C-alpha cells in the first residue's frame, strides 16, 4: 500500500522535481572549467522552467498525472495549488530572463540553482496541506533567496543585506514555527484538513475552553511570522536594506516569490478558522496591521529619491492592500446581490501576480540602466529617459502606472476587486465590524492616492524631466526581452483580465472547503495523544 501512495505523489510532483533536478545540474556546472559551459547556465535554467510548464499543462497527454484534484501525503492539488504553480512558473520565466546576466560568471551556476530551488519551494507551498510540509516549503522558498541576495552582485553591500535578511528571516521563521507548534497542539496533528478546522473553530468559539488561548496564540504567532514573508508591519524592517543591497533583478524576485508564498501560507492558516475573519481578535490584529502597513509603507516611500528603496517601502504598502483582501475573505458575499466583487482572496491572488509582474518590470528596467558605470538607482538617474530610450521610458511608466493603480492598468482592476470585496464583506459582517471595514477601505483608498504622489514622481522624471547625463542601457537582450514581456503581460491583463481573475477565483473556491480528514494509521497515534493533551489545561 505505501508504495502505491508514494508513486502517486511522485508523478504529481514532476514539475517541482524537474526544477530541483535542473537546479542540481546547474549547480554542478559551476565546477566546469570551460566558460562556455558556465554561460549556458541561464539557458538551461530557462529550458527547465519551460519543460516544467509543458509538463504541467500537457503532462496528462503523456500519462503523467501532475496532481489535479488529488490528495496524498500532506499535499492537496486543488485550485490554489494550480494557481501557485502556474504563476510561479510563468513569473519564473520572466525572472530568469531578467536576471540572465546578473552575477559574475563563476557564481552563475549557484545563483540560478538557488533560483530554481526557491521556485520549487514556492510551487510546493501551493499544494501543501500539512503544517510540516508547509513550513519546509516556506523555508525552501526563503533560504535560497538569502543566498541569491548575497551572490547577486559583487561588493560588501549585498553580503551585508544578505546577512541581515538571513538573521531576521530565521527569527521570523522561528516565530512561525512556534505558532505552528501551538496549532499542532490544538489540532492534534499536522494536517490542515477538515478535522483540524473543526477543532480550531470549536476552540475559538468557546472562550472558556483550555484550547482557546492555545489556538489564538498559535494563529497569531503563525500569521505574524508569515508577515515577514510579505514584508508587512511590524516585520518589515529588513525590506529597504535588502532591496537596496541586492541587484535589481533579485529585488524584483523578492517582490513576488516570498510574497506569494507568504500570502498563500496566510490563506492556509486563516483557513483553519473557517474564514471567520470579520469577527474576533484576529480581525482587529489584521485591521491594525493592514492600516499600519499601508500608511507606514507609503509615508516612508514618499520621502525616497532612491527608486529601489522607494519600491521596497511601497511593497510594504501593497502588502497592506493585500491584507484588506484577506480580511474580506473568500466569497464572503455568496448570497449578496448588491456587491461588486465578493471574493477577497481571489482578488488578492490576482493582485499578487500583477504586483509581481509590475515590480519585476520596474526592477528589470532599473537593472538594465547604468549611469557612469554604476547601477541606476535614484530619480536623477532615470531623468529624461524618454528622449533617449523611449521604449524603456514607456515600459517604466507602464509599470509605475500599474503599481499606482491607474485605470485601466491591471493594478487598478486588482485594487478595485480587493476594495470591492472588502465593501461586500462589510455588508455581510456583524454591525460592529461593518463600520470598521468601511473605514479600512477609506484608509486604503486614501493611501492609494498618497502612493500616486511618489509613483508619479518617477513617471515625471522619466517622461518630462531633462538630464545632462542620461542613463545608458547596457546592451543586453535577455533582460530587455524580460522587461518587454512584463509590459506585454500588463497590457494583456489590462484589457483582458478575465483569465487570470478566473484562475484566482478557482483557487479561492476551495478555501472554504477544507480537504477531508484522511485517517492514516501512522497519524492516528498522534491524534490520540493530542486528545489527551486537550483535556489537560495548557497553562
Amino acid at each position, binding site marked *: 500500500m505505501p508504495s502505491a501512495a508514494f508513486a502517486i505523489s511522485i508523478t504529481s510532483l514532476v514539475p517541482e522535481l524537474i526544477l530541483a533536478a535542473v537546479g542540481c545540474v546547474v549547480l554542478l556546472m559551476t565546477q566546469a572549467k570551460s566558460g562556455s559551459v558556465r554561460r549556458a547556465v541561464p539557458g538551461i535554467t530557462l529550458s527547465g522552467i519551460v519543460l516544467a510548464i509543458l509538463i504541467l499543462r500537457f503532462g496528462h497527454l503523456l500519462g503523467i498525472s501532475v496532481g489535479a484534484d488529488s490528495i496524498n501525503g500532506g499535499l492537496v492539488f486543488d485550485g490554489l495549488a494550480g494557481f501557485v504553480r502556474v504563476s510561479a512558473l510563468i513569473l519564473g520565466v520572466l525572472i530568469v530572463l531578467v536576471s540572465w546576466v546578473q552575477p559574475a560568471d563563476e557564481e552563475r551556476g549557484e545563483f540560478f540553482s538557488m533560483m530554481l530551488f526557491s521556485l520549487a519551494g514556492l510551487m510546493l507551498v501551493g499544494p501543501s496541506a500539512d503544517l510540516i510540509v508547509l513550513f519546509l516549503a516556506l523555508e525552501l522558498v526563503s533560504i535560497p533567496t538569502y543566498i541569491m541576495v548575497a551572490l547577486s552582485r559583487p561588493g560588501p553591500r549585498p553580503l551585508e543585506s544578505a*546577512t*541581515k535578511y538571513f*538573521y*531576521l528571516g530565521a*527569527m*521570523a521563521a522561528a*516565530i512561525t514555527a512556534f505558532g505552528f507548534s501551538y496549532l499542532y497542539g490544538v489540532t492534534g496533528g499536522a494536517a490542515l484538513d477538515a478535522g483540524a478546522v473543526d477543532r480550531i473553530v470549536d476552540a475559538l468559539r468557546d*472562550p472558556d475552553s483550555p484550547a482557546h*488561548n492555545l489556538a*489564538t*496564540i498559535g494563529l*497569531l*504567532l503563525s500569521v*505574524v511570522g508569515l508577515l*515577514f514573508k510579505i514584508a508587512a*508591519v*511590524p*516585520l518589515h*524592517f*529588513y525590506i529597504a*536594506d535588502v532591496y537596496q543591497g541586492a541587484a535589481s533583478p533579485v529585488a524584483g524576485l523578492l517582490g513576488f516569490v516570498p510574497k506569494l508564498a507568504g500570502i498563500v501560507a496566510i490563506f492556509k492558516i486563516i483557513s483553519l478558522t473557517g474564514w471567520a475573519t470579520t469577527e*474576533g*481578535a484576529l480581525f*482587529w*490584529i489584521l485591521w*491594525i*496591521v493592514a492600516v499600519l502597513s499601508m500608511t*507606514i509603507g507609503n*509615508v*516612508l516611500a*514618499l*520621502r525616497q529619491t532612491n527608486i529601489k528603496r522607494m519600491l521596497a517601502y511601497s511593497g510594504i504598502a501593497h502588502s497592506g492592500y493585500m491584507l484588506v483582501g484577506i480580511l474580506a475573505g473568500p*466569497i464572503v*458575499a*455568496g*448570497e*449578496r*446581490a*448588491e*456587491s*461588486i*466583487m*465578493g*471574493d477577497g482572496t481571489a482578488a488578492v491572488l490576482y493582485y499578487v501576480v500583477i504586483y509581481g509582474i509590475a515590480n519585476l518590470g520596474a526592477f528589470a528596467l532599473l537593472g538594465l540602466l547604468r549611469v557612469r558605470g554604476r547601477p541606476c538607482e535614484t530619480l536623477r538617474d532615470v531623468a529624461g529617459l524618454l528622449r533617449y530610450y523611449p*521604449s524603456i521610458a514607456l515600459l517604466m511608466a507602464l509599470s509605475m502606472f500599474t503599481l499606482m493603480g491607474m485605470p*485601466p492598468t491591471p493594478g487598478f*482592476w486588482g485594487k*478595485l*476587486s480587493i476594495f470591492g470585496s472588502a465593501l461586500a464583506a462589510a455588508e455581510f459582517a456583524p454591525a460592529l465590524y461593518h463600520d470598521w471595514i468601511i473605514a479600512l477601505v477609506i484608509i486604503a483608498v486614501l493611501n492609494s492616492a498618497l502612493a500616486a504622489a511618489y509613483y508619479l514622481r518617477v513617471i515625471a522624471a522619466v517622461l518630462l524631466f531633462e538630464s545632462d547625463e542620461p542613463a545608458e542601457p547596457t546592451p543586453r537582450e535577455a533582460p530587455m526581452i524580460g522587461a518587454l514581456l512584463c509590459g506585454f503581460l500588463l497590457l494583456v491583463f489590462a*484589457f*483582458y*483580465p*478575465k483569465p487570470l*481573475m478566473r484562475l484566482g*477565483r478557482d483557487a479561492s*473556491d476551495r478555501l472554504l472547503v477544507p480537504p477531508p480528514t484522511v485517517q492514516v494509521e501512522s497519524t492516528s497515534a498522534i491524534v490520540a495523544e493530542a486528545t489527551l493533551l486537550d483535556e489537560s489545561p495548557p497553562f
Partner: protein
Amino acid sequence: MLLAQASTSLLPVDLYATLPFWPLLGAIFTGIMIALRLKAERAFWPVVLGVGVSAVLGVILFFDLPGMLPHKADAGVTGHVAEAAHEYHDPGFTHTIYNWISLGDENSLKHDQWISVNFYFDGLTGIMIAFVTVVSLMVMIYSIGYMRDHHGHPERGYERFFAFMGIFVFSMAMLVFAGNFVLLYLGWELVGLCSYLLIGFYYKKPSAAAAAKKAFIVNRIGDFGFALGIFALYMFIRPLTHSGENPLDYAVVFHYIGELSQGKITLVALLLLCGALGKSAQFPLYVWLPDAMEGPSPVSALIHAATMVTAGIYMIARCGPIFAASQTALNVIVVLGVIGAMLAATMAMAQYDMKRILAYSTISQLAYMFVALGCSTPASGVFHVFTHAFFKALLFLCAGSIMLQMGHIIDLRRFSGLRNILPHTKRLMLIGCLSLAGFPLLAGFWSKDEIVHASFVYHPIVGALMLITAGMTAYYTFRMYFLCFHGPLRLPKEAGDHPRESPPVMIAPLYVLALGAIVAGYVGVTFTMLMGDSFLGFLKPHGYFHHYLHASTVVGGEQHGGGLWLMYVSSAIAIAGIWLAWVRYGDAPVEDPDKAALGGLWRLWNAKYYLDELYDRLFVRPLRGLGRFFFATDNNGIDGLIWVVTAVPRAMGGGLRLLQNGALQGYALGMVIGLTVIVLLWRWLEINGA
C-alpha cells in the same frame, strides 16, 4: 438571435467589428517605421491603407445594416429586454466581443454582469461610421500632399502626424461603435487625447502648445460632468438590473431609464450634457475651438469640424431615450444652442483669420444641431451632422490649400484676388461656401432648413433667431469668400513669386467632398410628383435618411409636415445674405466697410465679446492662484506633515540606536516589540471581550 441576424448580412458581424482596428494597425506600423528610422516619405501608406479598409467596411456596413437590425415585428424575440412590460424596444443589437471588467462573477454571485467590450449597431451607428470613415479617408489622402514644405519634402514629424491620425480614426470609430458607456467614455477620451496631440503638432510654437493645453483643460471640465453622469447612471440603473444584463450597456440603460424618477433622469441628462458642451465646443465651453486652429489644416478639417466635435451631438442623439424623458434638459439644450449659434455667428462676422472664421462657423453650426436636439427632432440634428461633415471638411481643406500656397498666411487682409492662381480651390470653396450658406438645393440647405422648421415648431422666437443666424452665416461665409478670391490680385511676400495650384493628391479628395457637399442632402429628401406639397414642385423634405434613423436609439417627435413656406423664406434669406456680402465685399476692399459702419458693435465682435478675457479673470487667474497656494502648501504644509509623521519612527530609531550598536539588532528588536504589542493587544481584546 445574433446568428439569425448574421445570416441576413452581407459580411459577418465579426468582420464589421474589426473596422476600428485597421487604422490602429496602420498607426502601429507607422510607429514601427519611426522606431526603425525608415524614410518618412512612405510613412503615410500603412495609415492610409488602414483607413481605406475601414472606409470600405464602413460604406458596406451602411448599406448592409438595415437588413441586420431586428424588425419591429419580431422585437419580442430579442430577449429579455422586450419581455418586460415597457414600451421600449431595442432598435439595434449589441455585439459582444469579450467581457472585460467583472461587476460580479457568475460563480460567486447571482449577478453575471460585466463591462464588456461590445459594439452597438443601429441606424445611427451606420450613418456615423459611414461618413466618419469616408471623410477621414479623404482628409488622409489630402494630408499626403499637404504635410510638406514648399519643396515638396515631408515636413518634420510627417510620420508622427499619420500615426496620430490613425489613432484618431481608431478612437472615433470606437466612440461610434461603443455598446456601453464605459467604452464610449474611452473613445471619447482617446479622441480628446488625439486632438490634444494634433493641436500641439507644431509644439515648438508657443501658441500651438498653449492652444493644445487649453483644449485639453476646457474639455476636462466637460468630461468631469460626463464621468459623473456615467457614475450616476450606474448608481441608478444597477439596482434595477438582473443577472446577465450589463448595467452600462446602452440596451439595458435605455430599457430601464423610464423607471427612474424625473429628477434623476434630468440630473443624468444634464451631467451628460456637460460632456457634450465641452466636446462639441458649445457655450460656455466653446473657447477652445478657435484656438485649436493652431493645428495643421487637415486636423482642423477632420477633428475640429467634421468628426470629433460632433461626438457631443452623437452622444445626445444616442442617449435619445434619456434626453427625451427630460423636458428640462431639452430646454437647457435649446437655450444654450441659440446663444451659441448667435454668439459664434456674430463673432465670425468680424474676424480676418480664415480658419478662425470657419471655426466660429463650426461652433455656430454645431449649435444648430444642438437646437435640433433640444427641439425633440434629433434626426434633423444628425442629418445636419452628416451634411456638415462634407462641406465643413471641404472648406477647411480649401483654406489649407490657400494657406499652403500663401506661405502659411491665412489673414484675409494680406491677400485677395486669388481666383486665377487657385482655380480649383476657388471652385471647390465656392461649393463649400454655398452649402454652408444654405443656398437652395445644396446639402447644407436641406438639413439646416429642417432645423429652422423644428425650432419654429418649438417656439416662434427661437425659429426667428435661427433664421437671423442663417442670414448671418450666409453673410460672413461670403465675406470670407469675396475677400479671398475677388478684387485685385494681392499676395503676401511669404507666398514667393509664383504661387500655383495645389497638387492633384490634394485636389482630388476635395472633389469627392465637394460632391458630398452638393448631393449629401438628397439622402434626406424625397422626390415627389405632388406639386402642392413640395419644394419647387418635386422635392419633399424627409427621406431615406430619416427612415434609416427610425431603427435607432434616436428618438423624438417626428418631423412635422408643412413648413414649405419656410423653405422659400430661408432660401431668400440665404441669397440676401450672399447678395449683401457681394455688395459690401465684392471687390475685396482693403478697408473693411463693416468696421466703419458698425463701430462699437464691430469692435465687440472682433474682440469676441471679451469673453476670453472674462474667463481669464473669472477662472484662469483664480485657479492659478489656487495652484500657487497648493504648491506652497505642498512645499511647506505637506512636507511638514510628513516630517511630523516620520518623526515617530525617527525618534524611535534614534532611541533604538542608543541602545543598539548596529541596524540588525535594531531591526530584530523592532520585530520583537511589534510581536509583543500584537500579543498584548490580543490579550487586551480578549479581556475586554471584543
